[in-house]
C-alpha cells in the first residue's frame, strides 16, 4: 500500500496558525438558531412551539424520515420563533430560534448512557443511541450516521476507516480532537467495530501530523484490530473515494457507495460524537470549529454549541484584523464564501476562514493553453479542461460521455490552472443540472 492516490495538489497549509493552541470552549450569548436541515435527507420536524422553555440537550426537532436526524437544543432558554433564516449555504431554511437565558441548565441525558462492556453492546442499542443523539457525518456533508451504519449487506463490511487526514488547509479541529481526546476517538471506533464483527479499523491520518500519529500509535500499541495509516500529505487525501483507495487499494466511482467496497468512512468528530452518544448519552450539541485565516486577530479552535452565530465566534477570536476581503464557511478548497456573518454554526460547520485578500477575484480567467495540468492533478481521473469546454458550449452529451459526474468538486483543477479558468465552478454547475434533471 502506498497510502496515496493519483493526482492531488500541495496547497499552502496554514495549519500552524491554530494547531498548537489549546481549544477554547465558547459559551454563546445571543439567540441560537437551529436550521431544521443541517443534514442530508428530510428536514427535521419541530417538537417545540413558540414560548416553550427548553434545556441543554433537550430534543427540539425529531427526524422527519429514515434519512434525517434529531436536533437538540444546545442552550437553555425559550423558543422565540420558528421561521426562515439564512444559513451558510446561502439559502433560507426553516429554523427554530431560541432565546438563550445564559444559564446552560442541562437536561438529564446522562441516564441514557450505556455503560455495558463492549462485547455486550447490541447493534440495535448502538444504532438507537446514535439516532436519538442526532449524530450526522461531521466532515461536511452531514449524512445521518445511523443510516451510514445500516448498510444493505452488513456482512460485506470489512473495513471501518476513520478519516483523520484533514487535508483542507487551515483546518486543525480534527487534529486537536485527536491530541486532546484520543481515548474517546478510539472508543468511538471500537463501538462501531462491535457492530461489524470481523471488520478492521483503520485510522487514516496525513503524515504532516507526526504528534497525533505518535500518540495514536502509542495508545494502540500491540493491537491488531485497529491500525494507524500515515498517509501522504496531499490534498484531497481526505476525500472519501481517495481515502478508501489510499487505505485499501479499492476504487469506487460516483455511482457506488463506500459500502460497495466493503468500507464505511467516518470523520474523527463523528466517531467522537458516537462515543459520547453511546457512553455518555450526550446528544450532538457541540463540535470543534476552527476560526482562522490571516484576517483574524487570534486564530483559535473553539468548542462551539450548534446554533451559535458566526459573528460571535469571530468576536471571540479577537475580531477582524483589518478588513477581510473574503470570509469562507468551511475549508478554503471546498468551503463556501459567505456574504453575511449572522449565520448559525451547524452540525457540519468545520471552520470559519477570514482572508485579507480574495485571491480568486484577483485574476481574470483567460483561454485554456492546453497544458494538461488539470488532468494531471485530477483525483477523479477525468479531464477538467474538456469538461469545462463542453459545459461552456452547452454540450451535455459530451459532458456525460467524458464522465463528468466523476468530479468530486475538490477544486484541484481550478487551483492548478495557469490560465485561472473557473474549472471546478463550471463543472460543479453542470453536475447540479444533471442531478436536478435526474430527480425530475
Amino acid at each position, binding site marked *: 500500500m502506498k497510502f496515496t492516490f493519483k493526482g492531488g495538489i500541495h496547497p499552502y497549509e496554514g495549519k500552524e496558525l491554530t494547531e498548537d493552541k489549546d481549544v477554547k470552549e465558547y459559551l454563546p450569548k445571543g439567540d441560537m438558531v437551529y436550521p431544521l436541515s443541517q443534514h442530508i435527507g428530510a428536514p427535521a420536524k419541530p417538537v417545540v412551539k413558540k414560548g416553550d422553555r427548553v434545556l441543554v440537550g433537550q430534543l427540539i426537532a425529531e427526524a422527519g424520515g429514515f434519512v434525517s436526524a434529531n436536533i437538540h437544543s444546545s442552550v437553555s432558554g425559550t423558543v422565540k420563533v420558528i421561521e426562515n433564516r439564512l444559513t451558510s449555504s446561502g439559502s433560507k431554511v426553516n429554523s427554530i430560534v431560541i432565546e438563550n437565558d445564559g444559564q446552560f441548565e442541562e437536561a438529564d441525558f446522562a441516564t441514557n448512557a450505556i455503560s455495558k462492556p463492549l462485547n455486550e453492546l447490541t447493534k440495535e442499542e448502538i444504532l438507537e443511541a446514535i439516532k436519538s443523539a442526532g449524530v450526522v457525518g461531521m466532515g461536511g456533508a452531514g449524512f445521518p450516521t445511523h443510516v451510514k451504519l445500516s448498510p444493505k449487506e452488513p456482512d460485506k463490511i470489512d473495513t471501518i476507516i476513520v478519516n483523520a487526514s484533514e487535508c483542507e488547509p487551515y483546518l486543525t479541529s480534527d487534529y486537536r480532537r485527536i491530541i486532546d481526546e484520543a481515548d474517546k476517538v478510539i472508543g468511538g471506533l471500537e463501538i462501531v467495530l462491535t457492530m461489524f464483527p470481523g471488520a478492521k479499523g483503520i485510522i487514516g491520518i496525513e503524515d504532516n501530523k507526526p504528534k497525533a500519529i505518535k500518540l495514536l500509535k502509542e495508545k494502540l500499541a500491540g493491537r491488531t484490530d485497529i491500525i494507524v495509516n500515515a498517509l501522504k500529505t496531499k490534498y484531497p487525501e481526505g476525500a472519501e473515494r481517495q481515502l478508501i483507495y489510499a487505505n485499501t487499494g479499492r476504487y469506487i466511482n460516483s455511482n457506488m457507495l463506500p459500502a460497495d467496497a466493503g468500507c464505511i468512512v467516518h470523520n474523527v468528530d463523528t466517531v467522537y460524537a458516537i462515543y459520547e452518544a453511546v457512553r455518555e448519552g450526550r446528544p450532538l450539541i457541540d463540535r470543534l470549529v476552527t476560526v482562522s485565516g490571516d484576517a483574524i486577530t487570534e486564530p483559535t479552535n473553539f468548542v462551539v454549541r450548534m446554533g451559535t452565530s458566526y459573528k460571535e465566534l469571530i468576536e471571540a477570536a479577537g475580531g477582524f484584523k483589518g478588513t477581510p476581503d473574503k470570509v469562507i464557511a468551511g475549508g478554503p478548497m471546498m468551503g463556501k464564501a*459567505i456574504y453575511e456573518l449572522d449565520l448559525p454554526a451547524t452540525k457540519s460547520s468545520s471552520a470559519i476562514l477570514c482572508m485579507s485578500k480574495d485571491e480568486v477575484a484577483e485574476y481574470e480567467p483567460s483561454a485554456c493553453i492546453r497544458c494538461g495540468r488539470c488532468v494531471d492533478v485530477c483525483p477523479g481521473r477525468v479531464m477538467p479542461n474538456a469538461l469545462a469546454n463542453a459545459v461552456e458550449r452547452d454540450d451535455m452529451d459530451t459532458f456525460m460521455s467524458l464522465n463528468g459526474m466523476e468530479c468530486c468538486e475538490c477544486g484541484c483543477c481550478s487551483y492548478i490552472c495557469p490560465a485561472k479558468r*473557473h474549472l471546478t465552478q463550471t463543472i460543479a454547475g453542470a453536475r447540479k443540472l444533471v442531478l436536478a434533471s435526474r430527480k425530475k
Partner: protein
Amino acid sequence: MDVMSIVIAAAVIGAVGILAAVLLGIASEKFKVEVDPKEEAVREVLPGNNCGGCGYPGCDGLAAAIAKGEAKPDACPVGGPEVAEKIAQIVGGEVSATKKVAYVKCAGNCEKAKDAYQYVGPQDCRIASNSPGAGPKACSYGCMGYGSCVKACQFGAISIIDGIAVVDKDKCKSCGMCVAACPRNIIEMVPYDAGAKVQCNSKDFGKDVKAACSVGCIGCGICAKNCPEGAITVEGFLAKVDYSKCTGCGTCKEKCPVKVIE
C-alpha cells in the same frame, strides 16, 4: 496512347451507367415510400427554422405529426397565427388566434436591485445560480443578467440591457427556448398585446422584497382590489394577471404603489 482503350473505357462506363439508371428507376417505382401529400404541403408552409420549439425533431417532424393529427395546426410557435391558419386550411381543425411572446418578469436592473455580494465565476446564469443565495442578486427570484436566455434564443430577440434581460417582442418567435433556459423561471409566454404585465417574480414577503429591490411587487393587493374585471389575483405576495380577462384599461398601472405593472 491507344485511342481504342479510351473508347472502350468510355463505352464500359457508359453501359454501366445506363444499367444502373434503369435499375434505380425500377427500384424507385417499386419501393416507393408513400408520403402523405398533406405532410408535404404542411412542411412547405412551416418556417423551416428547425428550432425545436414545438417539441418535435425539426420542422419535418412537426409536419409529420400534424399530418397524422398528433399535433394541432397551431403547434408551431414560430409561425404564429398566419402559418397556423394556412395549416388549418390543409388539414382542417381550429386555430387559436393569439400570438404569444416571451416576457421577462423582472424590472430590477443594476440601479434598482441590489447585489448581495460580488460574484466571481463563469458568466452563465445556470452556473451562477449554484453560488450562495442562488446567485449574487439580493433578490433570489430576479434576473441575474448573465444571459443564458440570450444564448438560447436563435432569433436574436433577447438582449441584456442594464443588467436584466429584455425581450424585443417583435423579434420574438415564441419558440419558448428561453423559458426552458432560465434557471429562475422568470420568463413567461404572454399574449403579444397583453394590457397589463407584472414586472416581478418575487414571492418573498413585502419587507424582504423592498430590502432587495426598489421596484419589486410587495403583494399589497391594491391592483387586485381595483381591477374592474377581477383579472388580478395575489398569490404568495405576487400579483398575477389573468390575460383572458384583462381588458387593458390601465387602472392597475395607476394604482400600483411601486409601479411594477406595465
